């Protein structure tokens, strides 16, 4: 049986150029690694590795700056969109994006996030929503589902005690300053490809000065959820997606 030759002409897929050789500290199967690849590919395809500045959060992905080979600014917890606002306004020719988790963007950072969106800053926020606080050991997040067990909701999230989860993407869609709001996932190869297209569209939106873009990625945290990576992807499909439905929530051109 003829064998496929391992040579450049036959190459179909490899580690993205802007992903460093550093071994990622993320848990096996963590969605962060997958999304990082897509960001790296989009920046490279746009030819903007020397003109992109990333703003990293506090959370598991605090170390995003070790994995994508561009300049980064580490922000205080929740403040990434305030940091990004200044970076973009002072360097309008650069591509500026934030990469944030659910606690960073929609708990402690809610004010900074809503106002950057309301002002219509020409930046992209990549919002990784896995309904839990991974880095600190699996506590409740604003996006934790009702009934979901976490370190601070050991009996399941009870709305009388802990209130309700909320969808910041839909809230941001109401703001005049936002133009591209989408929700994607990376739990199947087909969804990974859709997420990459969404990230590319968001980056182009920012570069065109068309206003604020949010790419929410519904993601897994197999450590926090206490399931295997494969089981987590299935759990996501059955439990997360009904509440956090995938698709474009807003896609408009800014009015002059």
């Amino acid at each position, binding site marked *: 049986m003829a064998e496929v030759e391992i040579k450049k002409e036959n190459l179909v*897929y490899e580690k993205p150029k802007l992903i460093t050789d550093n071994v990622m500290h993320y848990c096996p199967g963590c969605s962060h690694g997958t999304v990082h690849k897509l960001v790296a590919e989009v920046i490279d395809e746009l030819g903007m590795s020397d003109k992109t500045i990333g703003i990293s959060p506090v959370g598991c992905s605090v170390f995003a700056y070790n994995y994508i080979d561009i300049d980064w600014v580490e922000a205080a917890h929740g403040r990434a969109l305030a940091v990004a606002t200044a970076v973009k306004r002072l360097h309008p020719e650069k591509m500026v994006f934030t990469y944030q988790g659910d606690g960073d963007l929609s708990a402690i950072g809610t004010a900074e996030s809503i106002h950057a969106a309301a002002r219509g800053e020409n930046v992209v926020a990549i919002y990784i929503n896995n309904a839990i606080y991974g880095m600190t050991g699996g506590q409740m997040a604003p996006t934790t589902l009702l009934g979901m067990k976490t370190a601070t909701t050991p009996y399941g999230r009870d709305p009388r005690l802990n209130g309700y989860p909320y969808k910041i993407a839909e809230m941001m869609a109401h703001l005049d300053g936002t133009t591209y709001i989408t929700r994607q996932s990376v739990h199947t190869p087909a969804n990974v490809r859709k997420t990459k297209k969404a990230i590319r569209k968001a980056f182009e939106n920012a570069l065109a000065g068309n206003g604020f873009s949010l790419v929410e990625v519904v993601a897994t945290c197999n450590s926090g959820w206490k399931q295997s990576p494969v089981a987590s992807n299935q759990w996501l499909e059955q439990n997360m997606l009904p509440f956090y439905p995938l698709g474009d929530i807003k896609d408009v051109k800014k009015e002059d």
Partner: protein
Amino acid sequence: MAKIKGTIVVDNERCKGCGVCVASCPCDVLELSAEVNSKGYPAAQMKNPDACTGCASCAVICPDSCITVYRQKFE
């Protein structure tokens, strides 16, 4: 008739044995190794290399960029 065949190369030491590639392969090509790498993870490997079409689903979903995919057309 032309046949498209694929093959993958896995970076054993980078692989964390998460298994999402195994679950994503549409042709049941992959399995996790019975042995572990130096970090203690069972790396992914091809159990049915002949079934591989080079679709790159495994590589696309791999969080750690461990998989390189090659594809060749055979007449």
